[in-house]
C-alpha cells in the first residue's frame, strides 16, 4: 500500500466522521466547526489528486467565507436550549430518512459493482493537472460557454439576493 493510499483512507475517514458529527452534534456551533473539518479533509483529498487550485479554493471559499456566514447566522438566531431539543419524529422525517438511506445504499451498491472501483487513480494524472495555469487555459478556451453563462448566473444571484433582502418593494 503506497503512501497515497494510506493518506487517502485517513482523509476519507476524516471526511465521513466529521460529516457524522455535523449531523449528530446538538450545538449548531459544534456542527459548523465539524463541517469546517470536513471541508479541510476534502481539500486534502484534492491535493492527493494533484488538484491544488481546487484545494486552495476549497479552503478559502468554503472553510473561510461560507463558514463565517454560517457562524454569523447561528449567532444571529441566538438559539435557546429549548430550540435545540430534538424535533418530533414525524412521518415525513422517517420517510425522508429512510429514502435518503436507501438512496445511499443503492449508490454504494452500484459503485461497488462498478468496474475499476477501489483502485486509487492518484498519480495517473500529470502533475500539471490542476494547476492554475492549466485550469485557466481550459476555462477560457474549451469551457468558454459555461464560463460566460456563470457570469450571468452570478449577476442573477446578486440581483435576486438584493431583491429578496429588500425590506419592502
Amino acid at each position, binding site marked *: 500500500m503506497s503512501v497515497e493510499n494510506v493518506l487517502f483512507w485517513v482523509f476519507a475517514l476524516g471526511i465521513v466522521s466529521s460529516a457524522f458529527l455535523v449531523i449528530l452534534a446538538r450545538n449548531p456551533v459544534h456542527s459548523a466547526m465539524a463541517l469546517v473539518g470536513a471541508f479541510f479533509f476534502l481539500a486534502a483529498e484534492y491535493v492527493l489528486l494533484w488538484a491544488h487550485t481546487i484545494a486552495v479554493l476549497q479552503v478559502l471559499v468554503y472553510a473561510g467565507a461560507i463558514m463565517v456566514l454560517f457562524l454569523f447566522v447561528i449567532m444571529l438566531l441566538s438559539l435557546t436550549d429549548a430550540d435545540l431539543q430534538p424535533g418530533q419524529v414525524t412521518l415525513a422525517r422517517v420517510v425522508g430518512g429512510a429514502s435518503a438511506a436507501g438512496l445511499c445504499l*443503492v*449508490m454504494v*451498491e*452500484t*459503485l461497488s*459493482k*462498478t*468496474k475499476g472501483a477501489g483502485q486509487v487513480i492518484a498519480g495517473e494524472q500529470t502533475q500539471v493537472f490542476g494547476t492554475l495555469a492549466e485550469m485557466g*487555459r481550459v476555462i477560457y*478556451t*474549451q*469551457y*468558454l*460557454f*459555461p464560463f460566460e*453563462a*456563470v457570469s*450571468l*448566473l452570478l*449577476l*442573477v*444571484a446578486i*440581483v*435576486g*439576493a*438584493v*431583491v*429578496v433582502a429588500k425590506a*419592502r*418593494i
Partner: protein
Amino acid sequence: MNIPSLTFLDFQPVLPALLLAVGGIVLLLTEVFQSAATINRAYQSMVALAFSAVAGAVAAATTLEPAREVFLGFGVSDPFSGAVTVLVCVGLGLSVLVSAGFLRHRNAERGEFYALLLFAGAGMSLLAMSNEFITLFINLEVMSVSTYALSAWLRRGTRPSEAGFKYFILGAFSAAILVYGASLLYGATGTTKLSELAGLLPAAVASNPGLTYLGAGLVAVGLAFKVAAVPFHMWTPDVYEGAPTPVSALMSAGVKATAFASLVRVFLPFAQDLGPNHAQLMTYAFAALALLTMVVGNLMALPQRNVKRMLAYSSVAHAGYLLLGVAALFARPTGGEGPLAVTPLLAGAEGAARQQTLQAILFYLLAYTVTSLGSFGALAALERREDEPRGTAWDLEKFAGLSQRKPGWALAMAAMMLSLGGIPPTVGFMGKLFIFRAAVDAGLVWLAVAGVLASAAGVYYYLRVVVYMYMRPSQDGVTVPERQWTTELALVLSTAAVVLLGVAPGTLSAWLGKASVLFSQ
C-alpha cells in the same frame, strides 16, 4: 497550446439570449437613475417587451437554419432550440404585459422585476441550446434563481416569501440530484457532452449498467422536478399560489417548456443509441410518469375552489400530457411506420416518426404557453390586493357573474378554459389531438385512452369556472380592479391566438414541423 477559434457563427445562436440579458442590464441601470422625485416606470415594461419581441424575432428568423454545434460542442444551434426560444419569448412578452398592470396595481413595479424576467428568459433560451451537462446545469440555475427571486417578489403577508423559500429549497435539492446524476454519467462514460455521450453510451451500458442507469435516473428526477411531474410536483401548488400571478404564468409556461426541451435533448440518445430493450424501459418509465401525472394532476385539481391552485394542478396535468408525448418519442415505432400516418414513410421511417412526435410536443408547448398565460392573465386582472392576505383573492366565487360585469374578460377566460379542457375549436384541442395521435402512432394506445379519459375529467373543473362566470349571479358588493390596457392587450392577444390557432393551425404546425429537428451526429 491550441486555442480553439470561435467565429460569429458561434455567437449568432446566442443572440436572443444576449439581447434579453442586455435588456435586463439596461433596466437595472436605468432603475438606478430614478430619482425619488420624478419616478416614472412606465417605460420599463415597454423596454422589456421590446427586448423580448426583438429577441423572439431574431430567434424566429434564424430558427430554420441547419443544425450545428457551437462553442466546441457545448451548445447546439438547431431548429428545435430556435423554436423553444421563440416560444419562451412569446411567453415572456405576454408575461411582461400582464405584469405591468399587476405590479402597477400593487405599486410594486421596479426595474429589477423585469430584469429578472429577462434574465430568466435568457437562461431558458440558453438552456434550450445547452448540449453539455455543466452548461445545462448552469443555465438551468440562471433560470431557476431568477424565478426563485421573482416568486418572493411581493412580500406582503407570509405567502410569497414562503413560496420563494420553498421553491428555493426544493429546487436546490433537485438541482443537487441532477448534478449528482450527471457526475455519475461522467464517471460511466468519461464525457459531459451530450453529443459524445450518444456514442459512448452502448459501451458504458455494457460495462457499467448500474452506474449509467443510476446517473440517468437521477438526471431524470432533477428534470422531472422542473417540469412538475408527479411525484415531484409537490412544490407546484404552493409556489404557484404564493408567487405573483404573472410569475406563476411564466413558470407554468416558460420554465416547463425549456425543462421539457432539455429532457428531450438529454434522453433521446438513450432511446436512440441503446438497444430496443433500453428504449422500451425508457418508454415505460416515462409512460408511468405520464400516467401518474395526468391522473393525479386532474384529480387534485378537481376539488379546488381556489382558481390559482386549480391552474397550478392543471399545469401538473398538462405536464402529464406532454410526458405522454415524450414517452411516445422514446418508443420505437412498431413496424417502421406510424399507423396514423397514412402515406407510408419510405426512408428514415423512425426519424420521421420522431420528428412528428417532436412537432406534437412543440405544438402542445406553444398551445399551453399561450393558454396558460391567458388564463393567469385573466386571473391577474381580476384579483384584488385586499383579498390576498385572507387568501380569497382567487376564490371561484370571484368569477361569479363575471360575464355581466366584464364580458370581455369572461370571454377570454372562457376561451382559455375551453382550450385547457381541450374542446374545439381551440388550440388546446389541436394540441391534444397531435399529442394523442403521436402516442397512438408509437403504440401507446392505452396510455392515449387514459389521457383522453383524464382530460375528460379535467373538463369538469375547467367548465366550473365557465359556469360561475356565465351562470351564477355576481356577489353583492364585489368590485373588480380597474382596467389596465396592458393586461387587456395580453388577453386579446392570447385569446386571438387560442382561437385562431385552434381554427387554422396549419401554418404554425407546418413551421413547427420544420423546426422539429434536433442536432445529431
